[in-house]
């Protein structure tokens, strides 16, 4: 029989995000780990959650893991094939109607202590050291939806000042979003990395360590974070159950596209 006790940090990350999704939520997923996590949530943690993607495909239930948000693997197994503009309009109307159903996953290359994320370029914007894709749907999502940010936890990615803000977080602290004209009742909820979970202090809006994986520690997190981070509230997280690892490996991503 296969061994489901030897999980990887990437699998732990997927299980961690899956556990954040609640029944009834509408989850804005991209591809990669967020999709694995959301698929796992739908099977195990929150069966009544729904998946939508920024291309406009609504209530998705892919069989094989899609590689793109416009993938036929989403398109053939969803309730409605909307164009992107309807997705944007729906997202904004959820905010206008004061609904609290949407939760979104975004990622990036750099993040600061207030959850502002860069997925555009490293270095000088006009002649960058490294250029990435650009915003995609991330900027609109970070504007109107609560977000869970997925990052690799490295010192060079967790920085005091990021090179470009693609997706606004809490800007510079309390009132920061309102000052910029962004909805103040939306923003990053947490950051899930390959080492643990960071949340944002209710008063200061600064990132703090909420939980760390069995393979990590508060010291490990401090060492790999490029800004001062409060670890006083951190709890040790439990290893995922063998059943959850089995579902993820055998049923959700048997082709190992992302795990």
């Amino acid at each position, binding site marked *: 029989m296969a061994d489901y006790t030897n999980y990887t940090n990437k699998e732990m990350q997927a299980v961690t995000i899956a556990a954040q999704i609640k029944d009834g939520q509408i989850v804005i997923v991209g591809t990669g780990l967020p999709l694995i996590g959301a698929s796992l949530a739908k099977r195990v943690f929150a069966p009544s959650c729904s998946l939508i993607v920024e291309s406009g495909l609504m209530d998705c239930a892919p069989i094989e893991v899609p590689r793109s948000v416009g*993938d036929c693997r989403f398109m053939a197994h969803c309730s409605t094939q909307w*164009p*992107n503009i309807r997705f*944007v309009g729906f997202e904004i109307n959820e905010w206008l109607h004061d609904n609290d159903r949407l939760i979104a996953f975004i990622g990036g290359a750099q993040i600061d202590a207030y959850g502002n994320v*860069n997925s555009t370029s490293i270095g000088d914007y006009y002649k960058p050291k490294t250029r990435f894709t650009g915003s995609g749907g991330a*900027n609109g999502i970070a504007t109107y939806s609560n977000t869970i940010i997925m990052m690799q936890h490295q010192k060079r990615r967790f920085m005091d000042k990021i090179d470009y803000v693609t997706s606004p977080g809490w800007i510079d602290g309390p009132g920061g979003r309102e000052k910029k*004209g962004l909805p103040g009742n939306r923003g990053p909820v947490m950051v899930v990395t390959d080492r643990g979970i960071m949340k944002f202090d209710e008063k200061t809006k600064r990132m703090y360590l909420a939980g760390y994986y069995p393979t990590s520690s508060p010291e490990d997190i401090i060492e790999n974070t490029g800004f001062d981070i409060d670890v006083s509230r951190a709890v040790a997280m439990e290893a995922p159950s063998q059943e959850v690892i089995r579902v993820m490996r055998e049923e959700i991503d048997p082709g190992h596209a992302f795990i």
Partner: protein
Amino acid sequence: MNNKVYALSDAIAKFVKSGDHVCFGGFTTNRKPYAAVSEILRQGQKDFIVEAGPAGGDWDMLIGEGRVKAYINCYTANSGVTNVSRRFRSAIEKGELLFEDYSQDVSMLMLHAASLGLPYLPVSLMLGSGLTDKWGISKEVRKTIEKLPDDKFVYVENPFNPGEKIVAVPVPRLDLAIIHAQKASPDGTVSIEGDEFHDIDIAVAAKRVIITCEELVSNEEIRKIPSLNSIPSFCVDAVVHAPYGAHPSQCYNYYDYDNAFLKVYDVASKTEEAFDAFVKEWAYDTGSHEAYLNKLGAMRLIKLKVVPGLGYSKDMSKEANK
């Protein structure tokens, strides 16, 4: 009714002009008009002002071949194969590409606004981000490019809610749209299956519209179920029968992406030399879409056909033996 059927080379020669303000249909690795892209590469049109939308290898190849004058970006990658398209990335890192960034939502809304004929578009997006803090193309440079508006955007006050700062973005005036669709008829009626993406918007907004299609069906046939149709003949200038014309990207109900081919492109596009060899082999030296398909081979294309009910390709014989 006019017969708008053209050979691919004739349609590109007649309707694609250097300096065009252009947008392609499709989404990263789905329904991208690759057959038309290869023909443009062969014919040499250049200096495009590009509304790239969710782009992938289509615009990456045209950037790599130096055909782009200004690139309006929101996302450029063959998702799931590469983190970022590599000729796009290299051109920006070397400072060789004039580019602008908008969010994908704003890009798509701008194209929708163009289809509605709006003078400009107010949005509450891109606030508090680099997308409003930084201009990829300065006002001075914009003034030298006739087809670009002088401003990336302008802050305005919401006239219905004084004190609310909003972002007014310009509406592109497209010369050309190229869209790959599942079916079209000789009169120019088009049926897109699956997600339309921004394709109907650009078909309405562009002065010239080229449709490449998997199947060329009769004018009578395509009218049988009007609810399946996406674009009326009036918006279309040329219809080109180009089976597998979106290869290596997907075409809903027809074929999957050719992931092995996309991986080959990903490796090739890492260096200028390998990229040059790739476009020489697959675009220039093939000479035509028909020769490109023959070079790929029948079995390769057959294996990409989607399994009915699944929507993607899969070896069902192996599945049954499980």
